[in-house]
């Protein structure tokens, strides 16, 4: 039938890659006939079905004919040549043998699977965390084209970086800068009471104003309503599902009416927003249309022509393929063309990508918000780094340990390898055998880890404050990554034993060669030292952290923080009628003292800072914090007055008290009604004059109080000015009551009643000051938990490695131990001998760990103005712990080896 070939010479050649495959992987002995036959078939196909189909059929035929897919499956192929290592039958055999080996050595299998499971679990948990952190704000279709405007301003060397801009900046830049497709403004102007008139309950909510472009640029999906019109009309409001449920009990609220306490006109609900996903930087639960304010005088006269302020968060949507740097430069130019900053002031703008807001906003003030609105929560690059390091570290070490245990155990398997080789196993067969074993183990570990991760996720979520899940709905990229990591670990950790063990000569193995390689032993020793070094460092870190956190929570702050209830002032009435409210509160029997202040020590909102100077002196003005306080402040907080007198009555509204630090900075030793001037106070960005006509606030110093820690112990006590409650700088914002330890809930009820009597619209918001103070150190407490977890993990893994090494060494020295025993060594001697080697390693690790730990702990403690001293016992304790753990791990093998009857170990030679 060869005649069927095209007579006009050769038709187009068959696919070259298929030819190559055929020549490379053709079953042995069939090369000639198959290549010839297929060429003929190709010619025939070209004739009967056309060129493309012929090429396709040719490729398909080649794929089916090459190893390992070809050949009859009914029995072994007819020639007796070497079976292909990846032949299905061989694969089945590898799997079977792997199962048998693993189930025979249950202890090792458990150890290995334990270690690997641990590694994979850590990897998965951390992978989920990292994935969540790195995909922040990605739900918006145009996420990679959205930028936030950041203003950089430097006034005489004082630099501020604030993420905000002016009304005009947003309005004009779209018109004049070609690269900008759209802009939007957002402002968080404060908190106010939101009421559903049909069911009047006060909800204190953050007021977020947005212009009509906001929902175009960002994809915050609307469950109800139209994103094109929702924020267009004045007096429109869009609320989230969660808020709708709270206010109305249903989400079918389109067209309903709401009232905001700071606005005259009622608001119409024009949209219901879907709740934010957990990985969103934005957390507003309502949006009021900016148009609602455009008719106010303030807007028309001030805001709408303003180039200088930072009243708005401004977001840009750039056109595709434009550089943000060019736009920044143009923006800076545009603003400077319309607004001349004072001499000595540097002003420039930059654009921050939306995806960077979560993780790369350090040093950028989240502007355009009232001081009682919390800033956007930041991600922590610190955790990101730590976590990635741990994930890789744990996974690596788990893999290396597997390698270690496998090679250590291999001396038991040398005979098996010898027999396999002598009946014809090739090196590749053995290598595959070990690889399959490793892969089986990692796969099994992965399955266990998946279960474990789901068990641990609730705790982990609580710790990292996230809502992570692992299931069928998890992003496919996570699964892909996990699968890849598992395979990689399996292959890498299996490859070392696979390559090492398959290389020996069978004759030597069967003659009883001792598997002894000094090189690999010292590598393993180095690994143990490395692991224990890290473990010890972490144990020391944990101890230091524990004592520091304990110190922070129990240190004497200079005031008594216990049993203080701090009640927020949220309405004007509650502020104006404070005299009566305070008097009524003080009448409650379980309330000992009441004080009104603008801020409280341990404040969680921003303190106001001022510039202060003694009158007529040539000193540079000092920057000090300022708290407005009444005459009961010192008594309520139990702060000591060192010299002078306390406030007495409203005539003291031009008097101030200083703390020791402030007095020292102002060179005041004795309070004697010295006049001080306060010319400027902190505003939205930088300092601004106290009064519109630029005259400073003048006050007399009447007393000096002992320094107390009104800020976290991370910072030194700063200068502090206590002004009277009626001062021009900061109005009162809190009632603070010291109450009895008994019947706290009843006391709270009574306090609430007093407040509501004065103003029924006042939502009763309160905090316990000691709890608020503990929040300062919450991060440290979280780090402590993290460190304990990591320390346990590394110790666990280090012990696995040590155990493997101990087993190996005990097996190597079994004859030596036998001889020693015959010569009269006692089991105790022997156990000590065998353990001693390893304890030396751990001691060495301690030696390396101590200086590293000392350096690291010292660095960390330097971050606290007030901290504990590093003491020798912390190191000793950690070293002892590491030693003890190592001893426990090793002694099992040592004692076992020491108790073996020497007859058993010596008779075989």
């Amino acid at each position: 039938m060869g005649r069927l070939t095209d007579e006009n010479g050769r038709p187009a050649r068959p696919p070259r890659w298929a030819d190559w495959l055929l020549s490379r992987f053709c079953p042995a002995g069939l090369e000639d006939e198959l290549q010839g036959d297929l060429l003929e078939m190709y010619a025939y196909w070209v004739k009967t079905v056309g060129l493309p189909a012929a090429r396709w059929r040719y490729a398909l035929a080649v794929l089916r004919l090459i190893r390992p897919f070809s050949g009859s499956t009914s029995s072994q192929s007819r020639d007796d040549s070497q079976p292909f290592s990846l032949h299905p039958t061989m694969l089945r055999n590898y799997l079977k043998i792997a199962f048998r080996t693993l189930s025979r050595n249950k202890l090792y299998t458990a150890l290995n699977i334990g270690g690997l499971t641990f590694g994979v679990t850590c990897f998965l948990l951390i992978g989920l965390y990292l994935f969540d952190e790195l995909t922040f704000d990605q739900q918006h279709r145009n996420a990679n084209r959205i930028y936030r405007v950041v203003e950089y301003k430097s006034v005489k060397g004082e630099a501020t970086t604030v993420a905000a801009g002016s009304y005009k900046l947003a309005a004009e830049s779209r018109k004049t800068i070609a690269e900008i497709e759209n802009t939007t403004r957002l402002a968080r102007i404060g908190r106010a009471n939101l009421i559903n008139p049909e069911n009047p309950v006060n909800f204190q909510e953050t007021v977020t104003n947005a212009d009509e472009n906001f929902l175009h640029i960002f994809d915050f999906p609307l469950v109800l309503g139209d994103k094109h019109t929702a924020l267009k009309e004045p007096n429109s409001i869009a609320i989230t599902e969660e808020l709708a449920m709270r206010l109305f009990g249903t989400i079918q609220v389109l067209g309903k009416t709401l009232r905001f306490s700071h606005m005259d006109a009622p608001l119409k609900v024009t949209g219901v927003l879907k709740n934010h996903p957990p990985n969103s930087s934005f957390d507003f639960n309502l949006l009021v249309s900016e148009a609602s304010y455009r008719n106010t005088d303030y807007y028309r006269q001030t805001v709408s022509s303003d180039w200088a302020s930072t009243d708005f968060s401004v977001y840009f949507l750039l056109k595709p393929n434009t550089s943000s740097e060019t736009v920044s430069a143009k923006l800076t130019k545009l603003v400077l063309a319309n607004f001349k900053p004072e001499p000595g002031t540097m002003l420039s703008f930059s654009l921050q990508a939306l995806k960077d807001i979560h993780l790369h906003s350090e040093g950028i003030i989240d502007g355009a918000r009232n001081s009682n609105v919390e800033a956007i929560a930041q991600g922590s690059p610190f955790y990101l780094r730590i976590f990635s390091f741990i994930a890789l570290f744990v996974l690596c070490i788990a893999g290396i340990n597997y390698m270690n245990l496998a090679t250590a155990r291999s001396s038991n398997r040398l005979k098996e390898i010898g027999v396999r080789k002598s009946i014809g196993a090739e090196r590749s067969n053995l290598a595959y055998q070990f690889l399959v074993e490793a892969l089986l183990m990692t796969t099994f570990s992965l399955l266990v880890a998946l279960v474990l991760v789901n068990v641990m996720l609730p705790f982990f979520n609580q710790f990292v404050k996230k809502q992570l899940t692992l299931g069928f709905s998890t992003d496919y990229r996570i699964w892909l990554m996990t699968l890849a990591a598992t395979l990689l670990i399996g292959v890498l950790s299996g490859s070392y034993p696979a390559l090492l063990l398959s290389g020996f000569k069978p004759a030597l193995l069967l003659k009883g060669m001792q598997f002894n390689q000094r090189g690999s032993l010292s590598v393993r020793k180095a690994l143990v030292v490395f692991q224990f070094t890290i473990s010890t460092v972490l144990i020391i870190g944990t101890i230091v952290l524990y004592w520091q956190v304990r110190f922070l929570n129990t240190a004497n702050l200079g005031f008594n923080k216990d049993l203080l209830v701090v009640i927020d002032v949220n309405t004007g009435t509650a502020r104006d009628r404070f005299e009566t409210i305070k008097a009524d509160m003080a009448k409650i029997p379980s309330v000992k003292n009441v004080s009104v202040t603008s801020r409280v020590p341990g404040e969680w909102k921003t303190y106001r800072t001022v510039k202060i100077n003694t009158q007529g002196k040539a000193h540079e003005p000092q920057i000090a914090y300022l708290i407005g306080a009444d005459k009961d402040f010192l008594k309520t907080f139990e702060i000591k007055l060192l010299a002078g007198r306390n406030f007495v009555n409203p005539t003291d509204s031009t008097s101030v008290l200083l703390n020791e630090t402030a007095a020292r900075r102002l060179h005041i030793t004795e309070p004697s009604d010295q006049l001080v001037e306060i010319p400027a106070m902190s505003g939205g960005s930088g300092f601004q004059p106290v009064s519109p006509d630029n005259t400073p606030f003048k006050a007399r110093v009447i007393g000096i109080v002992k320094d107390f820690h009104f800020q976290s112990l991370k910072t030194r006590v700063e200068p502090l000015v206590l002004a009277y409650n009626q001062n021009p700088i900061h109005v009162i914002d809190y009632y603070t009551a010291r109450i009895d330890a008994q019947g706290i809930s009843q006391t709270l009820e009574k306090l609430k009643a007093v407040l509501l009597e004065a103003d029924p619209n006042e939502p009763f918001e309160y905090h316990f000051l000691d709890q608020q103070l503990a929040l300062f150190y919450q991060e440290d407490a979280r780090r402590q938990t993290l460190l304990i977890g990591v320390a346990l993990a590394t110790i666990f893994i280090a012990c696995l490695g040590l155990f493997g090494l101990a087993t190996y060494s005990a097996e190597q020295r079994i004859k030596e131990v036998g001889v020693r025993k015959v010569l009269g060594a006692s089991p105790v001697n022997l156990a000590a001998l065998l353990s001693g080697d390893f304890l030396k390693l751990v001691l060495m690790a301690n030696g390396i760990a101590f200086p590293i730990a000392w350096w690291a702990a010292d660095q960390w403690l330097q971050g606290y103005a007030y901290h504990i001293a590093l003491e020798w016992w912390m190191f000793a304790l950690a070293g002892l712990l590491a030693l003890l753990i190592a001893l426990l791990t090793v002694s099992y093998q040592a004692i076992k080896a020491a108790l073996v009857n020497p007859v058993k170990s010596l008779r075989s030679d």
Partner: protein
Amino acid sequence: MKRAFLGELEEVVLLTVAALQEAAYCAAITQTIDQQMNRSISFPTVHTTLQRLEEKGFVASQMGGATTDRGGRQKRLFTVTVAGQRALIESRQVRSQLWEQIPTPVLQLWGA
């Protein structure tokens, strides 16, 4: 002894080997089946079937007959062994036996 089973495909291939006589090699067999039986069959299937027949001892093979059409490569030429002949005859006998059992009127009805 259990008789080696001859599958339908195997029977077709074996018959083709017998029919082609001296020129029975894999490509030719595939093309014959393709043309004469109007039955689409892939080359690898025939190849595997031939291997299986050889394992069962129904065909024997030898190399030979390189031509320029096929890039000067040798062919594996197949011949039917005695066992193969017997299997074919037996299978034909079984069939004709069954055919004979069908009553003539029925066959006439079929138009056969």
